């Protein structure tokens, strides 16, 4: 059973309602049942879902949905709005202490990704805010945790403060602060050992570290894949430490991430950042609206657009548009396009961001094979300049040569040539459609 998006779920209910002149209270109730299931499947905590449904139901029954001509759409709209609101505004701001250094304490369960996130956050502070952070290795329990932070420090070219694993974290924190003051670091990031929220001794230790370091921010690092227990974990950490913000990790996976909602509801603390990959620059500000779409299985178009804008050269795009209009689109242009798309990241990741990607049968199980793309690239690169510009001259013997040169088969070459022809045809249709009506036809991925 794959996850189904809310829109998908609601379709069945809507089919029943269609034809009826008016939506009844019972219909709304049925729709709410689907909303409830969608949220539970996304790992939102049961109690949080309950409260949420109650709130949304009130709004839905209170006219908004029942009077609407498109109740299904309306329900989704209301649900999304409420979700976004619940997760708070965008707030990726980090505290700045009036008396530097600003101290940030990182806490969380084992394996949440504290050490990696500490490295990423330091990188973020330096890159976006021009800061000079000091990393502090206070995880004295997990084997080689200190080494891990030191390696990250080396990769970033940042100093790591460590006293080995025989000194207490409280002492490490104290001395690190002294060191930071002397060395004029404006931020101090303290990485602590992962611990269970029910481990009283270790939670006490964390409280002592807090007392000693007097942090300006206490970030709880949480794995986005966490299930129903997220509420208990977040609540315990919050009760013991008073967290000031949350960082959600491993959001580059395919989890819906309902934990985000649970944590927010349980602590009221804002989610500030999201870990989006293995690289040290893969830390992004948290966007509640996008998260709401994701939890509901509605894709993440905004991130997709952002990625496209980051990677597509506007100037080149304009030239391309011109070429398409004049039908002078060649294999060279095709290759360039391909590269731009590939720059945006793995294709299956991009597809997963499209709304309804999970719904489309063809796309659901699509395994975008990056290798296939490499083959296409190899084939094009094995063509002569003339062939790339005038593909129509590619006859049987040329095909054979291209296949040989690219290490593929004649069939693959044929397939590509055919696809290219069809693409050109499609472009012709598209450009003639937009001709005159509006200038500035946009190429997909712009």
């Amino acid at each position: 059973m794959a996850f189904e998006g809310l829109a998908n779920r609601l379709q069945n209910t809507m089919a029943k309602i269609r034809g009826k002149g008016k939506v009844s209270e019972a219909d709304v109730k049925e729709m709410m049942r689907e909303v409830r299931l969608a949220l539970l499947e996304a790992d939102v905590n049961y109690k949080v879902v309950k409260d949420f449904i109650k709130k949304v139901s009130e709004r839905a029954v209170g006219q908004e949905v029942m009077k609407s001509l498109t109740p299904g759409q309306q329900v989704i709209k209301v649900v999304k709005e409420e979700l976004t609101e619940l997760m708070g505004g965008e707030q990726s701001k980090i505290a700045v202490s009036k008396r530097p250094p600003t101290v940030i304490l990182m806490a969380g369960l084992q394996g949440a990704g504290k050490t990696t996130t500490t490295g990423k956050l330091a990188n973020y502070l330096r890159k976006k805010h021009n800061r000079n952070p000091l990393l502090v290795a206070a995880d004295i329990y997990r084997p080689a945790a200190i080494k891990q932070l030191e390696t990250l420090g080396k990769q970033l070219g940042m100093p790591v403060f460590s006293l080995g694993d025989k000194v207490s974290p409280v002492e490490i924190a104290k001395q690190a602060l002294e060191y930071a003051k002397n060395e004029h670091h404006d931020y101090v990031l303290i990485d602590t050992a992962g611990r269970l929220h029910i481990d009283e001794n270790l939670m006490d230790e964390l409280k002592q570290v807090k007392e000693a370091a007097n942090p300006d921010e206490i970030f709880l690092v949480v794995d986005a894949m966490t299930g129903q227990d997220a509420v208990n974990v977040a609540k315990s950490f919050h009760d013991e430490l008073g967290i000031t913000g949350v960082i959600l990790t491993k959001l580059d996976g395919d989890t819906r991430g309902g934990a985000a909602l649970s944590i927010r509801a349980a602590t009221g603390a804002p989610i500030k950042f999201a870990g989006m990959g293995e690289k040290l620059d893969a830390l992004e500000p948290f966007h509640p609206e996008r998260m709401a779409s994701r939890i509901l299985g509605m894709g993440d178009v905004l991130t997709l657009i952002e990625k496209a804008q980051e990677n597509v050269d506007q100037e080149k795009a304009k030239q391309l548009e011109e070429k398409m209009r004049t039908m002078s689109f060649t294999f060279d242009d095709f290759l360039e396009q391909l590269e731009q798309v590939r720059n945006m990241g793995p294709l299956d990741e991009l597809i997963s961001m499209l709304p309804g990607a999970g719904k489309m049968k063809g796309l659901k199980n699509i395994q975008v094979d990056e290798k296939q793309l490499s083959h296409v690239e190899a084939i094009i690169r094995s063509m002569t300049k003339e062939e790339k510009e005038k593909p129509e001259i590619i006859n049987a013997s040329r095909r054979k040569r291209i296949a040989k040169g690219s290490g593929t088969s004649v069939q693959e070459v044929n397939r590509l040539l055919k696809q290219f022809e069809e693409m050109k045809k499609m472009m012709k249709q598209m450009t003639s459609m937009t001709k005159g009506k509006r200038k500035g036809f946009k190429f997909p991925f712009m």
Partner: protein
Amino acid sequence: MSFFKKLKEKISKQKDSVTAKFKEGLEKTRSSFTESLNELVSRYRKVDEEFFEELEEILITADVGVQTVMDLIDELKKEVKRRNIQEPKEVRAAISEKLVEIYQGEDGAPTDLNIEDGRLNIVLFVGVNGVGKTTTIGKLAHRLKEEGKSVLLAAGDTFRAGAIEQLEVWGDRVGVDVIKQSAGSDPAAVVYDAIQAARSRKVDVLLCDTAGRLQNKMNLMKELEKVKRVIEREIPGAPHEVLLVLDATTGQNAMSQARQFSEATNVTGIALTKLDGTAKGGIVLAIRNELNIPVKLVGLGEKMDDLEKFDAEKYVYGLFADLVDEA
């Protein structure tokens, strides 16, 4: 004889220390789970629709998963009708019975590790980031050594900073050798080296660590396939076990993990870690139900000997200990 009585008798015949460990390790899990169950049972006079709704809630908060819970509830409703159960108390027994049934599976796929004497056994560990692969390997190495087997570790996580060192610390603690290359090298090459070393040293078991990877990263999954291919090529019939390490706090995404890792490496069992927290790891029910992958090991604490072979009856005993003792 009631189900609990049977279970109690069976368990009292077995080694006490292991049962105690399950009981202790699952204390938090159990107390919250049974508390809510007991509370439910005592609050209701009769078994009605509302009762089942609340039961559904309890199971969902254990991360069992919406679909499995609904199936379970449907079956329970049938059972209640068939046996003409009126008392909520009696449903309690029926629930645990069903749980054990699901855990054990219909075809009874073995929950024992496929490790035999007289051959080189290879166990490959896979899973997403931060689930506890390296720690589980350390604990299993300790366990196997206690059983008198010779063990070798392969440092196949060449990606994460400090991962090789972490495995080496475990190697020192347990007293087994670690075969490694430098960080960033090809994990398949490390595993290949380790197999050669294991052969020439004639060790019984080789445990292969791999880097954590999210299951939707196709290139990383391909890398894992390659590691497995190298093992298959070198030793026919190997890897004898591919263990997916799962964090008990993980929610519904665990299903996606089980599915994708199985596709890439044909997972033969699950090691469920961090069960000493408040999470219940109920998703393993759904995984067993849908993909027929059994849980083989459970991590019940931070100490070296806090890894146990999974036993469905003991697990359910751990969840329902108070009720069993009452019987």
